[in-house]
């Protein structure tokens, strides 16, 4: 009997390893194909928009020979497929050309603005998770109670009030009137020249350098826009948590869990939420991805130098390199988060593991 058991074990382990390898491989292939699709689509968008990239660089008073020279310099005289090949090669090495507006390489610009969005979106999502999940669970458990009504109202408000209005009201009340938080921007001018960003995530940078005064100032700047995004994220997450939980609480395994005499808290948080977490992962990842695209309205109101504002600016100035580069970066983040959600999904639900 013991011999049989030990003979079985290595086989099972090998099967487990090969399953992981094949899962990872599948992820790489899916990710690569989607990424290639993203590059192709952005390339053709770049071709069809009625903006002449050469004109944007040399200006509308340049001579015909200057235009031709620029055209040659940027490879725009080549056949389309060669242009596409060149585009792929450069995009894969992270070279999106030079921004017309800032005259920096686009990648450098994005590396500067993206961390600002990343920090804000992460703070917002964390706030949304921290309040949204418990609220949703309680609303489902105490259905039609006061807390359920509150969650519904929060959801309704989050659904119907425009974010820019709430943002302006927030600034008016908490910054202008009460002076509880700092105003627009990421950091006060007093710290702007003494503070050295490392990762671009200011809270993190200040913490690892022990710059606690700067940390407090950065915190005071981020708390209002992050709460705002967090509120909308919370409204969405709590609504989805509530509906997933209602679905799980009606299942037979909950009756079985009660029949074996488990505590209600254990049934709710250990059994029902553990099952509701499976679809929730996708919802949360998508909501996070939406915030990572950069919320243009929030970034504009709070003068937050993030990717949403960068893209809007570039678009208004016909800075095609910057727009395409930004789009590719956002698209890549989106693909990455989706793959990550898929991976988590597999971890949480044994039935999806092939």
């Amino acid at each position: 009997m013991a011999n049989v058991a030990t003979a079985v074990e290595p086989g099972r382990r090998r099967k487990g390893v090969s399953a992981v390898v094949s899962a990872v491989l599948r992820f790489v292939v899916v990710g690569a194909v989607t990424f290639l699709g993203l590059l192709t689509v952005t390339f053709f968008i770049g071709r069809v928009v009625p903006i002449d990239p050469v004109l944007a660089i040399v200006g509308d008073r340049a001579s015909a020979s200057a235009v031709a020279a620029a055209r040659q310099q940027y490879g725009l005289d080549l056949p389309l497929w060669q242009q596409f090949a060149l585009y792929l090669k450069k995009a894969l090495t992270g070279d999106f050309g030079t921004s017309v507006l800032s005259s920096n390489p686009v990648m450098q610009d994005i590396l500067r603005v993206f961390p600002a969005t990343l920090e804000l979106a992460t703070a917002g999502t964390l706030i949304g998770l921290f309040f949204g999940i418990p609220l949703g669970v309680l609303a489902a458990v105490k259905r039609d109670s006061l807390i359920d009504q509150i969650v519904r109202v929060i959801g309704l408000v989050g659904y119907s009030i425009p974010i820019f209005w709430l943002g302006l009201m927030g600034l008016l009340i908490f910054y202008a009137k009460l002076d509880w938080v700092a105003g627009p921007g990421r950091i006060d001018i007093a710290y702007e020249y003494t503070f050295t960003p490392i990762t671009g995530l200011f809270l993190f940078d200040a913490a690892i350098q022990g710059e606690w005064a700067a940390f407090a100032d950065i915190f005071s700047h981020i708390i209002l826009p992050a709460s705002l995004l967090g509120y909308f994220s919370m409204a969405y997450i709590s609504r989805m948590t509530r509906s997933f939980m209602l679905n799980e609480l009606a299942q037979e395994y909950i009756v079985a869990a009660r029949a074996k005499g488990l505590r209600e808290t254990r049934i709710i948080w250990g059994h029902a939420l553990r099952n509701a977490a499976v679809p929730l992962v996708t919802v949360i990842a998508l909501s996070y991805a939406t915030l990572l695209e950069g919320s243009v309205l929030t970034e504009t109101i709070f003068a937050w130098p993030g990717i949403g504002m960068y893209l809007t600016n570039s678009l208004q100035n016909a800075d095609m390199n910057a727009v395409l580069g930004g789009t590719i970066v956002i698209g890549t983040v989106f693909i990455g988060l989706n793959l990550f959600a898929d991976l988590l999904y597999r971890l949480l639900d044994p039935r999806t593991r092939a």
Partner: protein
Amino acid sequence: MTLLRIEDLSIRFPTRTGDIEAVRDISFSVGRERLAIVGESGSGKSQTGRAILGLTPAFAQVTAKRLEFDGIDLLKATPRLRRDLRGKRIAMILQDPKYSLNPVMRIGRQIVEALRAHENVGTREARERTLDMLAAVQIRDPARVFDLYPHEVSGGMGQRAMIAMMLIAGPELLIADEPTSALDVTVQLDILAILDRLVAERGMGLIFISHDLRLVSSFCDRVIVMYAGRVVEEIAASELSRAKHPYTQGLLNCMPSIDADRHPLPTLERRPEWLL
């Protein structure tokens, strides 16, 4: 010795269009014996089982002149006491293991959890006792099944795990709510044999809820027939052929027999006066 005593139990579900009376003034008692509750769907047999465990939905109204388990008044018992009774002294097996086992939790953990809800045992001992229990429901390779998820086992195996989960804390009364209806006919007999042996060995009382009269008559000592929330007949299983109520007779008549060639097979009659 009587374990459970029920007098005039009623279960009402208030709805917008008026109350629905799922169970109406039923009375019976169970000792350490096998009692079958038979009836068609909607007759109130499952709700009766759930009311005994205190698993009736909160919005429903449960009333009874007497609802006693081993001298404990269940209707006056605190929620805490009722929870302690569940699993520890009264347990329930549900119909379909595909839905009644938590899909994202390993089978072993679900059984361990049932044990540790009632007994303060260490991880090692809990595991040992779970493996013993899995062996007791005739699972050949308990250590392997312990680490499997519910979707990785067959229906018969899942129902064995369910029985193990519900018996591990040693209940005195077991309510089996159609425990074999979702299973293949060949597996049904295995599961019944396991239940039969464990109930006898442990001297438990069993309430076997089913719609299968023939199965019940061979497996149980006593049969209660329910119709529209009422008990219409209570009879010893061996005397089922002498049932008096026309509904029971109708049920029995509907069963085809292999020796007798009966055409057409009688259909079930439902007279409105039985609803009163």
